[in-house]
Structure formats: structure tokens, C-alpha cells
């Protein structure tokens, strides 16, 4: 389940089950916070199964018809979403997606109603490694909390120890996380819930007594800060990367992220969709990935 290095130019099967293109039925689609929605999608029971950290790519467009001219519809490309949960229910597989309404396509997705169909490609990418003998420190920022909820589900099922940290700008932008009530440490920039500040301020409050593994997903700057915090303490840290994806299956080379430790020119960039999204934090060249200053 560990992330493969950027040097493996031959994508193998992903960490989870078989990748497929499937029609998924909307079970529910509810707003859970300001600009934040929870989408449940039903798939054939044999779909996947995915591992926590993997993603799916959605399009709202119907399949292209061969006898018609092929157009882009509302958008040409699919949009990738890390899974926030997965279960089997009533003879079907149910994939959970927590997403932020940020643009045209997520705006359209937010309008989906139960019974409508979407086209889903996945499960794809690498997952978070879940160790039997370590305390998991899960750090999510904004809608980046999504894959860590899936991790927390699995860890709780296995009765392993974990701490869930959740940072947002304000309380009204945070998903409620009722399922983990009592085990979430909140941080908000405006102090409207939990610690005023960032997830780093909450990490600084933690007393870690046993071997800990940090897993994180969120804005690039937060990932870098968490990676740096972990590195200073000698803690293993796994990050879930986001870049602009083209295909989501490692055939277009669009989602390049600057990498460290590669053997040659080809390995200077890893592909977030194929080598990740989950990679060891030390694989990322954070200085090179920082956007050009305005």
C-alpha cells in the first residue's frame, strides 16, 4: 500500500481494487457546511474496493454517442475527489465524497439529486499506509479532511489509536464530523471553534508517547508545514497531493509535482495521480512546488 516512487514509469495496478468506469447513482447529496457538501454514490457491489487515500474522477456528462459529434458538455475533463468513506450496503457499494463547491463543475455537482446518475472512474492512486503498531495523527485542512475520514473509519474499525485534527478558516466552513465526536481536535483561523490558529498550533499541543505516523491532506502550504513539523520530530509523514489532473490514470503527465530523491531527469517530477496522491512527505520538493510569488 505504500506509495511507489516517481521513478516507476510503468504504472502497476493501484493499491485498491480494479479500476473501472461505472455509472454511479446519487443516494444523497447534502450541504454540510458553507460551500461544503456530502455526496453518497451507489455502485455495483463488486466495484473497487478502494483503500483510504484513493480517489475517483467524476463527470456529469453522459457517455459520448458515436453517431453524434463529440463535444465537451459542461466540462471536458473529469474532476478528481478523494474518497471520504466506503461501505457495502443493501447489495451495493457506496462511495462517500466530501467536496467543496469551488467552481462550475462542483457547482453543478452540488445540484445533483437522489436518483441521478454520474459517470465515475476509479478507484485510482495510492492509499495511506495504516500501521498496526503506531498512533495515527490525521491532519486535515478544509475539504482536505475527506480522505482522512476514510482513514479514521478504517483505523477505528481495527481498534487502533488515532487523533484527528481539523483546521478551517471558521467554524461555519467545517463539516460537523458527528461520527467522530469527541476525538476531533479543531482549529479555526478566527477562533470560532477549537484552537484559534492553524493545525500546527494544535499539533504543538499534542503529547505523543508512542510511535506516531502523520497523515495529512489539505492546501499545499499546510502540507508543507505539517511535513516540516513532522520532519523536525523525526516522524513518518504521508501527504495527499493535489495538482490539476488531466486523466487521473497516469497517461497524460499533467499532474506533475516536483520531487526529491529521484535518480535522473525523468524523476524530477512525480505524477500526483499515478505516483500518489499519497506519497511520503520527503518525496516532495516543497521549495520547487511553492508557487511563484506574485
Amino acid at each position: 500500500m505504500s506509495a511507489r516512487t516517481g521513478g516507476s514509469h510503468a504504472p502497476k495496478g493501484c493499491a485498491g481494487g480494479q479500476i473501472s468506469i461505472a455509472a454511479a447513482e446519487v443516494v444523497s447529496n447534502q450541504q454540510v457546511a458553507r460551500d461544503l457538501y456530502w455526496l453518497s454514490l451507489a455502485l455495483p457491489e463488486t466495484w473497487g474496493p478502494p483503500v483510504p487515500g484513493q480517489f475517483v474522477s467524476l463527470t456529469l456528462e453522459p457517455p459520448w454517442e458515436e453517431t453524434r459529434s463529440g463535444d465537451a458538455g459542461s466540462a471536458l475533463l473529469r474532476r478528481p475527489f478523494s474518497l471520504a468513506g466506503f461501505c457495502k450496503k443493501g447489495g451495493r457499494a457506496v462511495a462517500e465524497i466530501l467536496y467543496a463547491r469551488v467552481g462550475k463543475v462542483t457547482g453543478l455537482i452540488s445540484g445533483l439529486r437522489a436518483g441521478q446518475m454520474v459517470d465515475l472512474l476509479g478507484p485510482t492512486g495510492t492509499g495511506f499506509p495504516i500501521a498496526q503498531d503506531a498512533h495515527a495523527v490525521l491532519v486535515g485542512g478544509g475539504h482536505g479532511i475527506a480522505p482522512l475520514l476514510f482513514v479514521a473509519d478504517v483505523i477505528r474499525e481495527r481498534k487502533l489509536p488515532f487523533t484527528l485534527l481539523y483546521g478551517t478558516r471558521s467554524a461555519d466552513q467545517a463539516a460537523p464530523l458527528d461520527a467522530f465526536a469527541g476525538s476531533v481536535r479543531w482549529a479555526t483561523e478566527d477562533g470560532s471553534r477549537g484552537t484559534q490558529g492553524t493545525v500546527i498550533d494544535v499539533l504543538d499541543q499534542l503529547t505523543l508517547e508512542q510511535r506516531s505516523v502523520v497523515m495529512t491532506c489539505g492546501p499545499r502550504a499546510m502540507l508543507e508545514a505539517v511535513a516540516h513539523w513532522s520532519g523536525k520530530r523525526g516522524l513518518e509523514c504521508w501527504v495527499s497531493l493535489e495538482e490539476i489532473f488531466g486523466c487521473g490514470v497516469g497517461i497524460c503527465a499533467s499532474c506533475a509535482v516536483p520531487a526529491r530523491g529521484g535518480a535522473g531527469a525523468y524523476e524530477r517530477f512525480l505524477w500526483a495521480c499515478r505516483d500518489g496522491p499519497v506519497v511520503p512527505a520527503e518525496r516532495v520538493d516543497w521549495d520547487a512546488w511553492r508557487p511563484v510569488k506574485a
Partner: protein
Amino acid sequence: MSAQQPAPAAESGPKKTGCQPPPVDLSVQVGPLRLDNPVMTASGTFGYGDEHPDLTGVSALGAVVTKTTTVEPRAGNPPPRLFETPAGILNSIGLQNVGAEVFVRDVLPRLRELGPAIIVSVGGSRPQDFAHCVELIQGDGLAAFELNISCPNVASGLEFSRSPAEAAKVVRAVRSRTDMPLFVKLSPNVTDIASVGRACIEEGADGLTAVNTFLGMAVDVERRRPVLPRSVGGLSGPAIRPLALCRVWELARRLSCPIIGVGGIVTARDAMEFLLVGASAIQVGTANLRDPSRGARLVEGLREMLRAKGGGRLRDQIGTLRTPLSEG
């Protein structure tokens, strides 16, 4: 399935017997290549070709064109490499690839097992780089090379495709080192695409692939910066289909060489447009990004379209466009 095998004997015309679907023959002749069907992948949109074969249905394709390989491995461009536009994408990948040595050692053996004809796209900064790359890669189990003289996203990428004399230098250098079929991928970012194409054919190219991406640009208004790292990128997708089709038509009218049509093709109907104006084969590119099985589905779509017309040979449709003047 491989190239250069004799095609199955042409099936008889649109005779219908009982409930049997009418016989359909999708095979095409592209210069020296005989392909089971005219559907190829466009370089750079389908990896090396062997990724997720069950998902892509790669074995149904007429040919796979690989990601461009250069002599030395290349890093490619920094992110962001992609920007979605109305009905298209701008890309600035920059030929990230493993290099010829690793390609031959690790990738090629797997491609030989895929089934479709394998066309290796090669690139370089100088004519001798193209030639050297072809020398390193050529061998059994390959159908052809496609010379990528038209990548807009690397230094000197467009130089060779912008003048007939420069394009000729690349083809001459490569032709002197190999007898394998050569196709040259042309840039649409020129005033007279046919003169560049003619120069390539005169130097011994077996056909032309038309077209590579159109130069395009997007600006981040808030930051007052170009979106892409090299300011400009290559536009592809349905947005460019009419532009690409027009270039293919122009080449077909002015030259008599085989042409592989590419640019915004998504469905079988789109493919038929290119075949009717004179392309002998077509490539599916950007559409693979939404649907990695697009090419395989398009093959099936062509079969169905031909069946609906009563069967027959797809190659009989090639270049049969009826223009108002020729009708008159």
C-alpha cells in the same frame, strides 16, 4: 493484429442474408502499413500504451502511438502543466519521458505484447538527435516511427515544423539511418502546412500526421501572469476539430501521400469527417483523458456506422468528400 500483415480478403459488399449483420471491413492501408482499423492514439495522451489495458481496451486499436521518446530522459515542465479551456485543454507537459535506453529496455518489450501496431513517437533538439533516437529504438515488433517535429512546449520544439527546409533536414537525417516507415507530425502553427508536408515526403517520409496542438495562451487575471510555465501551450480537444479538419483537407487536396488525421476527434462521426476529407487513419487524443477507452469504443462505433449503411469497406469512404464544386 500487427502491422504489415496482409489484410483479410475484402469482404463482399453490402449483401444482406437473413439476420446476419452485413459484413464490415475496417482495415486500412496507411502507406506501407496495413492496419486492422484506422484508429490510433495520439502521442502523449495515452502514456506508453500499456497502462491499464483492461480499462483502455487497447487491444482493439489499429495502432498505438507512444508518448514521445528522446535520446536522453527529460524532466518536462514545472506545474501547472494543464489548463481547461472552452471545449479543450491547453497543455505544457514538455516531453517528460524516460529516454531511449530505458524505453528500449523496460517499455518496448511490454508494448510488443499489446496487439496493435506500435508506432514510436520520437523527438529531439537537432536533426541528428531524431536520427540517433530512431537508431536506438528500431527493431522487430515495431510498425513505424512518428517524428514529433511540432511540440510547442520545449525549446526549439517548433523550429523544425515551421519551415520546409528545416523539416526536410530532420527527415533526411532519420531516413539515412532506417528503412522503417516514417510519419511526420506536422504543426498547424504555420502559414502553409502543405509546403512543409511536401518537403517531408520528398525526403522519404511515408506519410504525415496532421495536426499537433495549436499554440494557445491563458492569463491569470488576478495575478497578471500567464497560467502556464512557458507562457504558451498547446491547445487540443473538440475546440480545434474544425481547424484540424481544415488542415487535413488542405493536405489531402495538395499532396498525394497518406495522412493520419488528428485534432479533437471524440466519436466515430468525428473520425468519419477526417476520413471523408482524405485521412487514411485517425488519432484520438484529448478525449482519452475523460475516457481512456475512447479509441476502443470509437472502433466499435465505426463498425456500427458502417453496418447501418449496409456494410462494406471503410477504406472505400476515404477521400470521398463531395464538395459543391465537384458536384457541379
